[in-house]
């Protein structure tokens, strides 16, 4: 069945950074923990590092102060220093959900020896709506009236995921 879908536009950002391609790629993939905003975390414990394992299939996760590890996703494509594609497996409610895969692609292109253009895209955002986790969050936060609709929503999300 050709069911109607809502497709939010991908998030796209381009920036110029003052480093060559290799250093830009390394800073992004190998030292994400040094620049990742601490306000964006899914762990109970404060984030001390964000790790991307440098290979296709590698994990993408944050490590908390207490040593706990929280999965964010995995590496889909590893092509240093030109490109990396990551699976972002956090759903609309900021919960890790292996069934929910949106893609983050970053391309690194040399402008000159001192500058790199970084092109960023986070796509397939419509997939964030294809699960019930957001509903669970609403339930947890006591959003009015949602209890009545819970069964219907979960059924709808399951249908959408097929």
């Amino acid at each position: 069945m050709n069911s109607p879908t809502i497709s939010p536009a991908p998030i796209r950002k381009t920036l110029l950074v003052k480093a060559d391609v290799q250093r830009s790629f390394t800073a992004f993939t190998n030292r994400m923990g040094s620049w990742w905003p601490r306000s964006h975390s899914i762990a109970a414990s404060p984030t001390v590092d964000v790790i991307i394992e440098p290979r296709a299939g590698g994990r993408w996760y944050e490590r908390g102060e207490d040593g706990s590890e929280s999965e964010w996703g995995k590496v889909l494509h590893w092509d240093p220093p030109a490109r990396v594609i990551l699976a972002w497996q956090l759903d609309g409610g900021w919960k890790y959900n292996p069934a929910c895969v949106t893609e983050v692609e970053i391309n690194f292109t040399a402008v000159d020896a001192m500058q790199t253009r970084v092109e960023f895209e986070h796509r397939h955002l419509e997939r964030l709506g294809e699960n019930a986790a957001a509903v669970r969050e609403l339930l947890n936060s006591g959003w009015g009236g949602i209890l009545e609709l819970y069964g219907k929503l979960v059924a709808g999300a399951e249908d959408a995921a097929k």
Partner: protein
Amino acid sequence: MSRKNTAAAALAALADPTRRQLIERLKAGPKAVGDLARGVPVSRPAVSQHLAVLKAAGLVRDVAAGTRRVYEIDPKGLGAIRAWLDDMWGDALGRFGAELDKEKDDTV
């Protein structure tokens, strides 16, 4: 409601196929409940209930048209889904760029 909760509400509202169908029909222009109820396999009260959920999630709004109310897509609502992700990446990439600037200064 915070932006994050707004986004979660929008996502939850769109998880239902009937509600997605209603949104699709509203893409063609504003419609009254009765018009929307024709062509969807649920009762008119159920359509009203779905519209209430879409409205609470910021995806549609209702406006007076003479003696009746019509529903239309809220142009601000659909963006809620991606707004907080957009903010997050803007913040993160800004810090990434600043980190490389800082490294450069350190090595001069």
